[in-house]
Each structure stands twice: as structure tokens, then as C-alpha cells.
């Protein structure tokens, strides 16, 4: 399995400890993401944003969470055979995990390069496929962890702190 990590140094210890312990969340949300379903893609992220908004999360952090989550949700709809998004809301952070049913990323480093995309014509016509999805997630998340291999499923995890 190939892996990619990007962690904001300020949260490295806390984020790694969290991933080992995975304590029980205050609120959990689950959404299925269907293949090329651009009618519903984005609903999961909007729901997470709404929950966090009600908790009083700062608007700037809220935007970072929504953007990172939406980009990841769109990636599952645009590039995978479908998958699932699980969100875990805590007092001080949100952890969102995307797991798809393949086909996997053959070269994660390459996929992280801004402007590089494997999006098909349908996806590009919708305004996606700029090759900025993963860089945009990296920019907005305190932790981004991707595990994938060609022919296998991809797991993408995001953590963003707000306290």
C-alpha cells in the first residue's frame, strides 16, 4: 500500500495520538457516495458544515473544513467506483474518512501535483478536473492521510482542528 501524509506541525502529536486512539465522537455522520452522482455529491459535506456551524465553529475554519471535505467527496464521485464518507465531530476537531471501492491511485505523489488530473470529459464539463482537488485538501486540512494502491480501494482521512 502506498501512503501519503501531510500534517500541520502544530498538531502533529495530537493528530497522531488521535488516529491511534480514535475516541468516541460527539456526533457521527455517514453518507454513501455513488459513482458520477453529481446531483447528490456535496450533500455530505454540506451536512457536516451545518453541524459544525451550529456548534459555533469559526467561519474561516468552517470554510476550510467544507472545502477540504467537498473536494474529497467530489473525488470519490468523479474517480472511484463509489464509496462512503464517515464524519466524526469532537469538541475541538473533526475527523472525516472517505473509503471507496477502487480502482485506487497508481501514483499518489503524481496525484498531489497541482494541475495533474485523470478526470474524464464528463467530469471536466462539470467544472471539475482542474487537478487541484488533492492540493486543495492538503492546503485546508491540518492532517491529510491517503492510503491507496492501483486495483485496491483508497482511504483518505482528514483532520481539522477548531479549538
Amino acid at each position: 500500500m502506498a501512503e501519503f501524509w501531510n500534517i500541520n506541525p502544530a498538531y502533529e502529536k495530537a493528530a497522531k495520538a488521535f488516529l491511534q486512539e480514535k475516541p468516541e465522537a460527539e456526533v457521527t455522520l455517514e453518507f454513501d457516495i455513488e459513482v458520477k452522482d453529481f446531483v447528490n455529491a456535496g450533500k455530505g459535506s454540506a451536512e457536516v458544515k451545518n453541524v459544525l456551524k451550529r456548534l459555533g465553529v469559526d467561519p474561516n475554519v468552517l470554510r476550510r473544513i467544507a472545502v477540504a471535505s467537498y473536494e474529497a467527496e467530489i473525488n470519490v464521485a468523479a474517480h472511484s467506483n463509489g464509496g462512503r464518507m464517515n464524519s466524526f465531530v469532537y469538541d475541538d476537531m473533526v475527523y472525516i474518512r472517505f473509503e471507496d471501492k477502487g480502482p485506487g491511485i497508481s501514483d499518489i505523489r503524481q496525484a498531489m501535483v497541482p494541475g495533474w488530473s485523470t478526470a474524464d470529459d464528463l467530469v471536466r464539463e462539470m467544472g471539475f478536473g482542474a487537478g487541484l482537488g488533492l492540493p486543495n485538501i492538503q492546503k485546508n486540512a491540518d492532517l491529510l492521510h491517503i492510503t491507496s494502491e492501483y486495483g485496491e480501494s483508497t482511504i483518505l482521512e482528514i483532520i481539522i482542528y477548531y479549538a
Partner: protein
Amino acid sequence: MTLREILTVLEAEVLTSGADLEAEIPCAFASDLISDILMCTKEPTLLLTGLTNTQVIRLSDMIDLLGIVFVRGKTPPQELIEMAEERGLILMSTKLTMFRSSGILYSSGLRSCKI
């Protein structure tokens, strides 16, 4: 600029009902790429775009859009208009190109949003 002034200089029409045309618009951004729009709008912004699929409205769930101007005479589907109305988001349509619309708004004093 107010929405009313923007409508006038762009010779645009309003597609949604119930909009407050006296609302002040501080800045704008123009793009046909969703990731660009997500990356480049860090404050409440007017969006100029040629994209007319419903993901443009999903976009407004993630970032703070004050309204959307569809350029090049594009008209969105009814479903999109309804989604915008549910959210209180104003939609406008102009026959002008994105370049021309941006130029007119910029020279009328509308600034670029913080990126």
C-alpha cells in the same frame, strides 16, 4: 457596488425571485473551474461563471457566495434556480463574456476578492 448597479452595467437579468437589489457587493471572482473557485474565495464574493450545473449551488453551500452571474448568455436549468431560491441566493444572467463582464465590473470599482 449594489446588485442593482451590477445588473445595469452588465445588462443582466435576474433569474431568481425575492432578491434584495440594494445589497452591497464588495468583491467578485470569475472562473469556470470549481477547484479554483473553492481555492480563491476567502470572503463573501460575487461569482461570475459559465458553469450551469447544480454543483455550482453545492459550491455555495461550502463558501460564502453573495450571488452568481452566468456569463456568455448561459441559462441554468430550472432545478438549479429552485435550489438557489431555497438558499436565498441571487442568480443573474448576462450575454456578455466573462472577460468583458469582469472588465466592466472592475472599472466600475468592484475589487477582486481576497485569494
